[in-house]
């Protein structure tokens, strides 16, 4: 705790003193750039919020603030590729839930989830303090849930935190009832009709405005929002678990030339070769092996390892358990990756699955996800293997600024470490 408090103070002071002019050299550690091979005794040089050099023979300017990482591990900041962090504060309290739009008949394509981002959420700090520097904030519900954004976990306004938006349109083919349909075939049909309507709308905008077009199944705003999807520019992130639902999504993608990402993907390993051939990535957890529903009968912990070996681009997310605990524990994505390693994924692939791969999937690999000159200085210094429980996070930089700060949980721990708490004792 003392260490944390001190580093927080330092960070605050540094921030106050024109952090952007600051040059930081993280030296002596084993550097995992992810975009390349690990570098022993490497240096990461940061200036003006960007990485300016990474390597074994980097000259450190005299005025640089040196951070000794000898015996430690240096990685890019972790990226959680799908979460509701910042959209939901307390799951059980409806007034703090902003992830599910009402939509129109199951379609909420125009829902820009990040418009409700809570920049003051107490849940940022626990994630940030444990090495998560970027998340994909995604909506849920209905057939088309809305649009996702990529968010950096800096201390700032919502607008400052949002790195890029939209980065994906979110939909699902898991749950016909949730899509306000009665059967899987009807759900796919509804999605197909929507896509056809979007294409029709694209070429008949003028007719539509004169009310001279045939009736379309979605609102104007939703049709507009879907245009980048049918143009293949914006990925459609499709929740699908059952292997047939995944295959259905692949067929739809082929039919409409869509760029899709499978999310959840409980049975994706059964379609690993097809996914690889279609260059369709999968975002999945690594700790589920329970047939929790008839859609997930064959889910197993080897899933991401099998996919990765088959050549599928895989991003690992935290989806252990019932989901109740997920927002509190976005920080645990690193343990999800560790479990993936236990069940057959290489350590290298698992680290990539929580850094560079998600950055690539959402089109921000030129900014985050790896340690290379020109990238944002989102860097974590770990006391050891990032996936191990025994490892501590020593430094977290986002845009070159040290961002560790006591979380609400840290403050509570301090307050009650000695009982009775100070406020109750009467000296």
């Amino acid at each position, binding site marked *: *705790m*003392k260490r944390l408090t001190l580093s927080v103070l330092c960070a605050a002071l540094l921030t106050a003193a024109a952090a952007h002019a600051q040059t930081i050299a993280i030296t002596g550690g084993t550097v995992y750039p992810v975009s390349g091979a690990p570098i022993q005794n490497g240096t990461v040089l940061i200036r003006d919020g960007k990485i300016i050099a990474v390597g074994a023979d980097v000259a450190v300017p005299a005025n640089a603030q040196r951070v000794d990482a000898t015996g430690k591990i240096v990685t890019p900041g972790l990226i959680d590729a799908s979460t509701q962090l910042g959209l939901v*504060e*307390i*799951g*059980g*309290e409806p007034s703090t839930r902003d992830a599910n739009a009402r939509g129109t008949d199951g379609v909420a394509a125009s829902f820009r989830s990040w418009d409700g981002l809570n920049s003051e959420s107490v*849940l940022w700090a626990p994630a940030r303090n444990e090495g998560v520097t970027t998340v994909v904030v995604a909506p849920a519900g209905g057939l088309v849930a809305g649009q996702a954004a990529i968010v950096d976990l800096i201390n700032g306004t919502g607008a400052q935190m949002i790195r890029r938006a939209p980065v994906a349109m979110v939909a699902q083919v898991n749950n016909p009832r949730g899509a306000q349909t009665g059967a899987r075939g009807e759900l796919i049909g509804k999605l197909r009709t929507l896509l056809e309507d979007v294409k029709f709308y694209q070429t008949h905008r003028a007719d539509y405005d004169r009310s001279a077009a045939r009736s379309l199944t979605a609102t104007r705003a939703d049709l507009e929002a879907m245009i980048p999807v049918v143009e293949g520019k914006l990925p459609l992130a499709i929740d699908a678990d059952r292997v047939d639902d995944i295959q259905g999504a692949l067929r739809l993608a082929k039919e409409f030339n869509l760029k899709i990402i499978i999310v959840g993907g409980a049975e994706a390993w*059964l379609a690993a070769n097809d996914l690889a051939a279609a260059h369709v990535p999968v975002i999945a957890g690594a*700790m*589920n*092996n*329970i*047939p*929790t*529903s*008839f859609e*997930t*009968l*064959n889910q*197993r*912990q*080897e899933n991401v390892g099998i996919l990765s070996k088959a050549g599928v681009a895989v991003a690992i997310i935290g989806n*252990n*358990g*019932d989901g*109740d*605990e997920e*927002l*509190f*524990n976005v920080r*645990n994505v690193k*343990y999800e990756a*560790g*479990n993936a*390693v*236990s069940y057959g994924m290489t350590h290298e692939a698992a680290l990539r699955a929580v850094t560079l791969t998600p950055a690539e999937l959402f089109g921000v690999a030129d900014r985050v996800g790896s340690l290379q000159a020109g990238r944002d200085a989102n860097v974590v210094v770990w006391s050891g293997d990032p*996936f*191990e*429980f*025994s490892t*501590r996070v020593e430094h977290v930089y986002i845009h070159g600024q040290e961002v560790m700060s006591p979380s609400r*949980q840290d403050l*509570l*721990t301090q307050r*009650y*470490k000695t*009982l*009775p*708490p100070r406020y109750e004792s009467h000296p």
Partner: protein
Amino acid sequence: MRTTSLLLLCLAGAACAQTPAPTTAPSPSSNVATASAASPSRDSVGRPGAGALSLPNANPFPSTYAPFPSRTTFIRNATIMTAAGPTLQNASILLRDGKIVAVGTSVTAPSDAVVIDGTGKYVTPGIIDVHSHLGVYAAPGGGGLNDGNEATNPNTSYVWAEHSVWPQDPQFPRILAGGVTTVQILPGSANLFGGRSAILKVVPTRTVQGMKFPGAKYGLKMACGENPKRVYSSRGPSTRMGNVAGYRTAYIQAAEYRRKWDEWNANHKGPPPTRDLGQETLAEVLRGDILPQMHCYRADEMAQMLDVAKEFGFKIRAFHHAVEAYKIADLLRENGTGAAMWADWGGFKEEAMDGIRANIALVDAAGVRAMIHSDDPSGSQRLNQEVAKAMYAGRAAGINVTEDMAIKWMTINPAWALDLDSKIGSLETGKNADVVLWSGDPFSVYSKAEKVWIDGSMLFNRDDPAQNWRTDFDLGFVNGGAR
């Protein structure tokens, strides 16, 4: 172990102070399930009024569990975490006839033993999960298997979880593969009184009776806070004060019920009082023979429940979830009540806002029986990882938590919460041979349970998937079965 037994005696003594009840002594050998299970009813007939049950047939669903066939097994040259003392390096453990025969660095293998090389591996007691809904919320879920909450009345102390448990729940072999050997199945938390728990061995069987831990006391699920008041908001209780009134009203009635039965048991005058299933359970709580296991998040509510327990002269064995236990660890210690916690769940509802990862370590450091629990079929498979997170969080908060302390959070402390710590929860001579062989340090993310023994019988072997338990559900529905 000595401390454990002493503490246990003290607690038993406290319970007996009001009712000089003979405890249903744990049977020394594990193959006398019937005799052990039958002992409460014998007591009730033999010693009326002294811890007696309401009726002669007090054990209508007796355990039929018998240990599976086992071979004398010797694990050599392993790191052994006994949960009863310091970790032993390069040590061996001998299992015979379902019991632990010897543990130490100078144990030798008898000629008839199957010898397993434990070089580089770790051995721990079987993990005990005191908060599970396996079988009552069986996979694959859906309404047809939704049997965990009898949410039709705020007081359903008359239901027994075992009557909902589906032994073919495919989640059972999966937690066994995570090293869990004993599990407490609880009803859900919709009600103030959810019903009786079932203490089960994680073994393949056609019937729940075949899983029931012989001689184990029942638990009673009680629940504080948001869940009951939400579920019953229209009919009541709809507030926390309504909840507390509900517990007190029920115990007032149960005390009266108990008095009538104790009187009748003592003199057999006239016809016996009318039986009431719910009152029977609560009367047994008052007699100390059923252990209240109470779902409670907030510190202030736990403090109030400790007073309610005092008012009626019973003990809450452990608070479950207890996300704010660290705020009142001193009160828990004074009351001899344990706490079963998650490593890091929190924030999902208002009463869970103040969850911290150092909770278990802080509570343990205050001298309370602290333990991990899952409440989750996925977490139950990795309680070793949950303990690891909690242990390292404790260290980060400045508490000197050793692995020898942390191992107790998933073994002997939950055994105590079930009043089974004389039989399971540590690797000591004479105890049940519930043992896990890990591929490495159980507090590493990369370690897995390789082999799991229950009563000396190897029921899970990662190296021999074809022989591992597959439930009926796994057949056909699941490609490959339990993994």
